[in-house]
């Protein structure tokens, strides 16, 4: 197997994390300046860095972009957010991609707790 570059070190992972955060910040900046293509490219790069160095995209940023077209998803501007049938449904207004995040487990837990309480 051909090795692409050297092995990653702890420092590399830290740099990768910083770069992902930085890229999301700049993506927001570009988005607000109306440069949607550059904003998308930033997020695409952030994902690539994450995949290359096995670094996760932070939780708070994870739902902030469309997985298909990499647009920033801002509710009311580029995304539609609906809560239906124990799911959060986020639709991308740019490409129409739909992401569903179920919270059925939380709902059942709450129900159980309620039943026990009464």
């Amino acid at each position: 197997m051909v090795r692409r570059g050297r092995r990653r070190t702890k420092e590399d992972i830290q740099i990768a994390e910083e770069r992902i955060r930085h890229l999301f910040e700049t993506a927001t900046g570009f988005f607000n300046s109306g440069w949607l293509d550059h904003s998308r490219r930033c997020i695409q790069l952030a994902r690539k860095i994450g995949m290359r160095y096995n670094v996760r995209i932070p939780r708070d940023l994870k739902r902030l972009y469309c997985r298909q077209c990499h647009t920033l998803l801002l509710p009311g501007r580029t995304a539609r957010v609906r809560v239906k049938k124990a799911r959060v449904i986020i639709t991308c207004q740019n490409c129409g991609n739909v992401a569903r995040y179920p919270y059925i487990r939380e709902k059942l837990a709450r129900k159980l707790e309620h039943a026990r309480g009464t």
Partner: protein
Amino acid sequence: MKRWLKHEFIGHEIEIVSAPQKSLAGIRGVVVDETKNMLVIHVEGEDMKIQKKNLLFRILPENQVIDGNRIMFRPEDRIKKIRR
């Protein structure tokens, strides 16, 4: 120095110190995209594509001069491939 080579350029303002095309020297702009061989910078309302080869540029907030020949990698490969 070595830290900057591995870091992100997108979103930072740079100034070109010298380039094979002489008229580019002194131009300032915000980096908006990066590929293996180019930097795309936004200068006065338009995007300029600049080759990295034989380019010398300065990151403005830090005043750090960077040699374009050392960053001729894809942006996501740069962390791994650059050695000191």
